[in-house]
C-alpha cells in the first residue's frame, strides 16, 4: 500500500494508572475502507477509537490521521467526527440545530445559507427530510441514530468514527442500519472505523476486521480471512461459533498435525503456529464444516441431543462419548426433509482442511464456548 493510511497507530500504548488498556499497537487503516475494531469488552477497542477522536491521549507512541501526528491536537481540531454510543445528541437543540452544530463552529464562518443548505442535504441523506424542527426526544431510537450520523457526516470528516452505533437498536432496525451504513460508506467514500463487540456486525459490514484482545491487535484481515483462517484460538472462538476439541499432538507432517482427541480418535488438522509432539492443543471445528450422516462412516460418532430448526438451516447439539457436546449446522434443502431427531445416533464427518489446531496454553475461550452452547440450547 503506497497511499498514506487514513489512520495509523505507531507503537501506541495507553495506561490508566496501573491498568494497561492498549499495549503497543501498530495499525494502519487504509483509505476509504470500512474497518471494524472487534473484541470483547475491555479489549481496548473503544480506547483506540477515543485516541483517534482526541478524547484520550496515548501514553506512548503516536496516532496519525492522514499522515499527521495528532499529539497535542485537541479533539475540536481533528478532521474526524464520531457517532457516539447512545448518540449524545444535544437535548436543548432541535434536529436541524443538532446537525448544523458542527457547521456553526467552522472558522472562517459559513454563511447561514450554506449552513441551512448543507444541514438540509444531510437530513435528506439520512432520510429525515422534514424532521428538522423536531425535538430530539420526539424521535425514535432509529431516527436519533440517523441524526447522529448526519450530525457527524455533515462536517465532511476525513474519517467517521462509530462507537457501538447499533447497540441500542432492535434486531430488525440493526440489520437495516447495517445495510444503510455500508451504502453510505461507499457513497461518501471516506473511511469508517466502527467499534463493536458483536462479531456478526463486524463480519457483515466491514471490509477489514481488526480483532483485539487484552489491549493488543490479534488479527487484521478481511472478514472471510478472519473467519476461515483465525490467527489463534481466541479469534477462532470469538469470531463465529466453533467447536473446540482438546487433544495432544500425536504426529507432525508439514503443515498438518495429527491430534489424538480425548476419546482416542486421531484426526488431522492444519496448524497456524509451530507445534511440538505431545503438546496439548485445541482443535477448532466450525459447526457448518461438520457433516452428519447415518451411523456407519465419519470420523466421530455421537447422539443427537437437541435440534434447533432455523428454516434454511438446522443446528444440532451432538453428544460425543469422551469428547463432549459438539455443535453442527446443516443446510436444509426443501423436500429433502432428512432432519435428524433427538436421540438418534449419527456419524460426524468433516472436510480435510477444516480442523485447525492451536496451542492449548492461552486458552481463554473455553467458557465463552460453553456460554454460546448454552445460548443456543436455551
Amino acid at each position, binding site marked *: 500500500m503506497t497511499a498514506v493510511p487514513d489512520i495509523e497507530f505507531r507503537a501506541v500504548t495507553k495506561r490508566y494508572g496501573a491498568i494497561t488498556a492498549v499495549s503497543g499497537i501498530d495499525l494502519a487503516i487504509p483509505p476509504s475502507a470500512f474497518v471494524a475494531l472487534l473484541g470483547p469488552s475491555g479489549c481496548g477497542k473503544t480506547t483506540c477509537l477515543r485516541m483517534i*477522536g*482526541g*478524547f484520550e491521549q496515548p501514553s506512548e507512541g503516536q496516532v496519525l490521521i492522514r499522515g499527521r501526528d495528532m499529539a497535542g491536537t*485537541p*479533539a*475540536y*481540531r481533528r478532521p*474526524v*467526527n*464520531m457517532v*457516539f*454510543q*447512545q448518540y*449524545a*445528541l*444535544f*437535548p*436543548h*437543540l432541535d434536529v436541524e440545530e443538532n446537525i448544523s*452544530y*458542527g457547521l456553526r*463552529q*467552522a472558522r472562517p464562518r459559513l454563511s447561514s445559507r450554506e449552513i441551512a443548505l448543507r444541514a438540509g442535504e444531510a437530513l435528506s441523506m439520512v432520510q429525515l427530510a422534514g424532521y428538522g424542527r423536531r*425535538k430530539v*426526544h420526539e424521535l425514535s431510537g432509529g431516527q436519533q441514530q440517523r441524526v447522529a450520523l448526519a*450530525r*457527524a457526516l455533515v*462536517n465532511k470528516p476525513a474519517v467517521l468514527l462509530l462507537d457501538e452505533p447499533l447497540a441500542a437498536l432492535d434486531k430488525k432496525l440493526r440489520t437495516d442500519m447495517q445495510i444503510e451504513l455500508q451504502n453510505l460508506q461507499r457513497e461518501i467514500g471516506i473511511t469508517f472505523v466502527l467499534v463493536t463487540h458483536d462479531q456478526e456486525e463486524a463480519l457483515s459490514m466491514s471490509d477489514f476486521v481488526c480483532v483485539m484482545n487484552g489491549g493488543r491487535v490479534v488479527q487484521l484481515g478481511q472478514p472471510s480471512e478472519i473467519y476461515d483462517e483465525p490467527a489463534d484460538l481466541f479469534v477462532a472462538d470469538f469470531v463465529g461459533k466453533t467447536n473446540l476439541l482438546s487433544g495432544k499432538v500425536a504426529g507432525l507432517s508439514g503443515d498438518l498435525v495429527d491430534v489424538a482427541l480425548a476419546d482416542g480418535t486421531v484426526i488431522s488438522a492444519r496448524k497456524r503456529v509451530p507445534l511440538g509432539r505431545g503438546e496439548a492443543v485445541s482443535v477448532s471445528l466450525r459447526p457448518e464444516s461438520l457433516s452428519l450422516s447415518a451411523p456407519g462412516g465419519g470420523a466421530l460418532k455421537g447422539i443427537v441431543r437437541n435440534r434447533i430448526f432455523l428454516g434454511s438451516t438446522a443446528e444440532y447439539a451432538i453428544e460425543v462419548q469422551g469428547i463432549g457436546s459438539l455443535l453442527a449446522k446443516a443446510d436444509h434443502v426443501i423436500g429433502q426433509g432428512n432432519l435428524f431427531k433427538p436421540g438418534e445416533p449419527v456419524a460426524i464427518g468433516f472436510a480435510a482442511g477444516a480442523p485447525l489446531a492451536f496451542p492449548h496454553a492461552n486458552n481463554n475461550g473455553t467458557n465463552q464456548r460453553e456460554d454460546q452452547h448454552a445460548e443456543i440450547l436455551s
Partner: protein
Amino acid sequence: MRRSLFRKNLVTALLLAPATLWLVVFLVLPFVAIAIFSVGERAPEGGYQAALTLAQYANLPARATAFWNTMVLAPAGALACLLVAYPVAYYLALRAPQRWRLILLALIVIPFWTSLLMRTYAWMYILGGRGIPALLAYVGIEDLRLINTPGAVLLGIVYGYLPLMILPIYVSLERLDRRLLEASADLGATPLSTFLGVTLRLSLPGVMTGFSLVMILLLGEYLIPTLLGGGKVFFIGNALVDLFLQSRNWPFGSAIAITLVLVSVVVLIVANRISTRLSGARRVDLI
C-alpha cells in the same frame, strides 16, 4: 371497584391532611388576615381598624428606600452568589476527583449546622472596629469602615446564601451527560464554545433554581441588613418589623407585605418561564 377507589381517596386525603391543615392555619389564614388588614386603617392607638381603602397602597412610596434597597441588593446579592457559586459547582461536578466530591460537598453544607444568626454575628465582629479594620490600621491603613455599609450586607448575603446557590447548580451539572461535552468538542467547538453552548445552557435550570431561591429569601431578608447594615441599609423586612412592632401601623405594614409577596410570585414565574424555555422541552418546576 367503587369501594376501593373510595378507600384510596380516603387514604390520600388522610395522608395530605396534616400538611393541608398546617398550610391553612399558618399560611392561608394569615395571608387572608394580612390582605384584609392591608385595605384597612390604623387604629388611633395603633393596630388595625376595619375599613375599605387603598390608601395604604397609595402610601407605598413613603417606604421607597426600603423597596429600592431590597430590589437592588436582593438581585445583586443573588448575582454575586451566582458568580461565586458557579465555578465552585463546576469544579465539584466536573473537575473534582470522585473521592473528594462528597467531602467537599459536606464542607459546603457544614456551616448550616450553626445558625445563620451566630455566623452573621461573627461577621459583625470580623468587619467591626476590632476586626479587619484594626488589623489594617496595624499596617497603616487607617479609618476604613466596613461594617454598616451596603458592601458588608452584600458580603453577608453571599456568605449566608452561597450553599443554596451551589447545590442546585451542582446537581444540574452533575446530571449533565459528559458525552455531550465530547460530542461538542468532536464537532469542532472550542472549550469556550462548548461551555457556553452546552454546559452553561444545560445547567441553566439549576442556575435559575438557585437564583430564584436566593432572590426570594433575600426579598424577605431581615437579619443580615440589621446586623451588618446597622439600620443604614434598610430592607423591606426591616421596614415590616418597624411598622408592626414600633409604629404599630398594621395596615401599612400589611400593604407592604402583600406587595412583597406579589413581587416574589412574579420573580418565580419569570424565572420558571426562562428556565423552561432555555432548557428545551423538559419542564422544570422550581417550587
